[in-house]
């Protein structure tokens, strides 16, 4: 018997998992269900829950499990009941530096700030183009530009750090 907490924001759901031979039984909110899962394509699964049949997409983004069924998307953190080791502290020193990241892959059209510039929250720091759309990327905080990590004309990845701003 295994016990998991499935966390979504503030909500925690407790799920019990039993393996019996080839079968998997899950208990949630007092109901025990036989769960059968067949992969039908990458990240795509056919799921039978006590005879109910549906298709869903399940994928991972880091430690987050993303489940998509029909129009809905759920993003969960799942923790076994055994508590995970406490996260080491000591990140405070860096918390005052805010990275400005590309929200998606694209072509960096321009960088509007230089190292040492003072910026206000919401001020545009760069312009990114993807699929013929240009968008301004704004400073998340008021501060001083500590570093510029990307140049205009450069292809950037989603999540890539473009500029680092030190909060004042």
């Amino acid at each position, binding site marked *: 018997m295994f016990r998991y907490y499935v966390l979504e924001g503030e909500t925690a*759901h407790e799920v019990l998992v039993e393996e019996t031979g080839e079968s998997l039984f899950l208990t949630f*909110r007092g109901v025990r269900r036989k*769960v059968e899962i067949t992969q039908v394509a990458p990240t795509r699964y056919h799921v039978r829950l006590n005879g109910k049949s549906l298709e869903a997409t399940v994928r991972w983004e880091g430690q987050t499990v993303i489940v998509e069924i029909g*129009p*809905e998307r759920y993003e969960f953190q799942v923790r076994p009941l055994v508590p995970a080791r406490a996260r080491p502290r000591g990140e405070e020193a860096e918390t005052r530096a805010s990275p400005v990241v590309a929200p*998606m892959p694209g072509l960096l059209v321009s960088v509007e700030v230089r190292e040492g510039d003072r910026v206000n929250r919401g001020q*545009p720091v760069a*312009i990114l183009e993807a*699929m013929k759309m240009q968008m301004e990327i704004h400073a998340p905080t008021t501060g001083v530009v500590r570093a510029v990590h990307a140049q205009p004309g450069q292809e950037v990845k989603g999540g890539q750090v473009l500029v680092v701003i030190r909060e004042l």
Partner: protein
Amino acid sequence: MSVRLQKVLVANRGEIAVRIIRSCKELGIKTVAVYSDVDRHALHVRLADEAVPLGGANPLESYLNIEAILEAAKRTGAQAIHPGYGFLAENPQASALCEREGIVFIGPPAEVLRICGDKSTARERIMRAGVPVLPGTGAVSDEEALEAASRVGFPLLIKAVSGGGGKGIHLVREKSELPSALRLARGEAKTSFGDERIYLERWLERTRHVEVQIVADHQGRIVHLGERECSIQRRHQKLIEETPSPGLRPSLRAKLHEAAIAAASAIGYINAGTLEFLVSGEEFYFLEVNARLQVEHPITEMVTGLDLVKLQIRVAAGEPLGMNQGDITFHGHALECRISAEDPHRGFFPSLGRILAVREPSGPGIRVDSGIYPGMEVTRHYDPLLAKVVAWAPTREEAILRMRRALEELVIVGVDTTVPFHLWTLNRPEFLRGEYDTRFVEERWARREREGAYETEAVLLAAAAVHLRGRRPLLSISHRPPLRNAWRSQ
């Protein structure tokens, strides 16, 4: 005087290139595809009879490269070029160069495109024909725009003079937003259309976006093929279209059809085209001419039984339409859902990546126009439209139910798509009642509360996924082979 076309070059990519190739084949016309490096295995290339490489992924080197495309037409002996939509479709120079080279441009003549492209002239002529228009400007510099803005009134839109497809459009609610919006709009106009000219137009809140399809031949005959309701949009790009429009009273519908014919006649329109209108209550205003085949043309085809690409080809070849308004009849209701590589859960941001598997819907009353295949790379260079699902049924209610089941069948693995948005919208009471306007996405979808209909299933799957992760699984999560037969998989 008409030409017998035997070979057509399709100067486009994706679903629309596939769609055009289909009609050509049905007419017994050979097809030539052109392609950029990244598209060399694309569906349109595989389906065409011949294929000519153009160059790099950047559209300027490939699908916007008029010289290379003309050269390809001459080398392959294609007598005509179909530009599809976007790229060269509304470019008067492309049409003019074709005329000069003796190649048929399957679209309006250069002169018509010039008028439609110069939005201020088109507006002026159409206004004189008695069709109401919104306040706006001609092409303006940034300085002129700042000055003209108060005259036009806020909120206003900045639009690209050579624009189309919702690109280069920016909504400006107050004067302070104008400078930065002008800059973005010009940047987009330049990269998308190679023309950084922009103009201003008044924006009305709470409107419906309704357009009328027309076709006109060289002999001076012009007919309309009914309207399309296109109010479900994000970033001024359509997501769902339907015909007939559920929100028009018969008298208003008739007025719109008449206005479309009057407007098209006023500018001497030839070939297939669309007149866009804003509808606000019982009032309507002409917006612009889309001088091309439109993305959403299939819904018109479903209710009229006509093939717009075939009509375009015949008209371009100089043949008469061969039908009167009275010959055109409308049957049932059709809806289109655009399936784009975007994440509707995160503000419809583009979702790039490789498509790993595809299952397209089928069955009665369903049509899928698609350009995707497993292994296809969705890149930032092109429009995110992957496929269009079209549902037809005798009534609107049945068409919506049919669309819902089709979208439940549709699976695209590898990139996020607009499917969750469509499934949600097709269940909304206001959509079912036909009571929606252009603010639907920002007001309804963006602010929705999740219904949690699948919460139990999702929680169970998440727990099972974590439990089974990284083990030789007990279950068939990976030890049984995937069901490849049911899938187009890599």
